[in-house]
């Protein structure tokens, strides 16, 4: 018995030491802006060190993973990590964990701004402010990021205002009252300049006591308000249509477009499928493969159609590889990470089919790469970080994600 306990304790301590070492390594990679390597170390760290006693480290790991994904532009995968960080850190009344919860919310806000989903961005912002008030969060709890937070929201909101003014005045008219209400200087100055010209912007800066900043800003404001300035953003900016998700991301020179037409499920579930796909491509060693395509489009159509199997369509397109997956309710349940092996097998197979089309590596090499992912834990992580999802499923029966209550999909 003693021998057994020693083995278990010894192993656990060894695992934790290994996890800590991997986390330290990931920070080094992060500082070098090598986010994919950082993510691989974080994966090792997460699977070795997760337990209730190491909750703070786990949350830290999730936030760090989210940061890596944000820097790579993989926003769905980032959202997945940060949602888990937020929920886990809210489980106990611990000051350190609370600060992590606030940090996660700020990152979630940042993600939605990047995705151009203003409604959700403001929702996270509101939740953050509410919790700050509720917990009487002080500067120590908010940390250095707390000070930066308003600035991040401000600059993003300013960009969104410029885009909306140039592209769709109706959206601008919706945003303007929010800008006025928040009284964040950059977005106010830009919004006033757009409406009343450069002089109106200058006046606004004066009113907000930003005279000193005006000389640094004026050139930028002037450029943005001029009629020939074209503010290029992704097509889904300010997309408030919850039924349709469109994410663009790029990895090893391949541009991926992920579309989800979701008529049935809570959007977060549809997003988690996208997150799994994004995480797969980040965690996979794609640089080992001979990829000869530079554009891939994946489209998931989720509906209540009455067929049981997932239907796959290959659309012939000279520009890029296009695949359409038609999924009904029953099949979608099978794909969810927590429902077990069937979904994992299907996704693994589909990804293999996709790799067979975009790479010229021999089949055996592609299989080896998938096996490597599986052994390293990257595949499980890509498919929704299995153990953590189960943990959440047990502890948080009524999570509020994007304003909707998630219903358990278990039969």
């Amino acid at each position, binding site marked *: 018995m003693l021998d057994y306990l020693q083995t278990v304790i010894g192993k656990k301590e060894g695992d934790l030491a290994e996890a800590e070492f991997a986390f330290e390594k990931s920070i080094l990679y992060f500082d070098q802006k090598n986010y994919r390597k950082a993510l691989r170390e974080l994966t090792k760290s997460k699977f070795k060190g997760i337990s209730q006693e190491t909750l703070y480290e786990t949350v830290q790991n999730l936030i760090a993973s989210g940061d890596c994904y944000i820097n790579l532009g993989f926003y769905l995968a980032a959202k997945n990590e940060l949602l888990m960080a937020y929920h886990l850190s809210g489980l106990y009344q611990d000051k350190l964990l609370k600060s992590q919860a606030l940090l996660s919310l700020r990152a979630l806000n940042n993600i939605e701004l990047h995705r151009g989903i203003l409604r959700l961005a403001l929702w996270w912002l509101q939740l953050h402010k509410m919790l700050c008030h509720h917990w009487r969060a002080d500067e120590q709890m908010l940390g250095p990021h707390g000070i930066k937070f308003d600035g991040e929201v401000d600059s993003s909101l300013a960009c969104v205002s410029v885009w909306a003014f140039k592209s769709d005045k109706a959206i601008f008219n919706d945003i303007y009252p929010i800008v006025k209400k928040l009284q964040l200087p950059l977005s106010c100055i830009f919004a006033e300049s757009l409406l009343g010209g450069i002089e109106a912007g200058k006046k606004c800066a004066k009113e907000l006591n930003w005279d000193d900043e005006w000389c640094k800003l004026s050139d930028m404001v002037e450029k943005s308000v001029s009629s020939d300035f074209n503010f290029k953003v992704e097509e889904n900016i300010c997309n408030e249509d919850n039924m349709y998700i469109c994410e663009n991301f790029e990895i*090893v020179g391949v541009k991926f477009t992920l579309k989800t037409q979701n008529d049935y499920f809570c959007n977060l579930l549809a997003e988690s499928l996208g997150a799994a796909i994004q995480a797969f491509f980040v965690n996979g060693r794609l*640089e080992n493969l*001979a*990829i000869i395509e*530079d554009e891939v489009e994946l489209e998931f159509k989720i509906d209540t159609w009455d067929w049981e199997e997932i239907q796959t369509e290959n659309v012939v397109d000279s520009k890029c590889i296009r695949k359409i997956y038609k999924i009904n309710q029953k099949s979608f349940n099978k794909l969810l990470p927590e429902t077990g092996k069937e979904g994992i097998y299907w996704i693994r197979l589909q990804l293999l089919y996709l790799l*067979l089309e975009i790479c*010229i*590596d*021999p089949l055996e090499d592609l299989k080896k790469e998938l096996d490597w992912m599986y052994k390293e834990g990257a595949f499980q992580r890509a498919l929704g970080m299995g153990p953590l999802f189960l943990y959440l499923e047990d502890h948080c029966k009524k999570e509020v994600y994007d304003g909707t209550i998630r219903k358990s999909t278990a039969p």
Partner: protein
Amino acid sequence: MEQFGNLPLHKRYNEIEMKKAISNRYRNISKAIPRQLEYLGESKEFAAIVKKLRRDGWKDWHILLSIINQMLNLKHFIGKTGWYPKTEEEKNEILNFKEEEYFQSFCISEFSEEKLYFHLKGALITGCKVMGFEFRKRDIKPGKIEKFLRMRMKYFDLDVPHKTYFPLADEELYVNKPT
């Protein structure tokens, strides 16, 4: 970001093996088609084409491959549309192709830039197959294969010292050399 721009060389890249293969190509092709090469080497018109191809990044071993492939094409496809080697004998003939004893060189016009380009692109695909890659789709995009070979297999960087096959195309190099 340009595709492959930040990617490492592919794991199948093996400089020693590839240089050995290039060296073999120079040796085997020059042995197989000496008269045709001599004939082309004396042509100013062909020298201009070689210079243009070199400017585009093609090496002499690519050009030699293209020449021999065009010769194979001329020999087997004249009057035989859709011909491809079926029997072992025919396959061996392709592999061991060489000029016959009383070989009459093909005319320069058969080695136009356009025709050589056709074979240069074709050689990219066969080159990939030799390296162990698999083509599972029918619509292969040569531009993308070229990019992959250029960036990740150094296909356009590798060469070995070799004798001069196109002296007239080389002249410019010497003329422009600083004294």
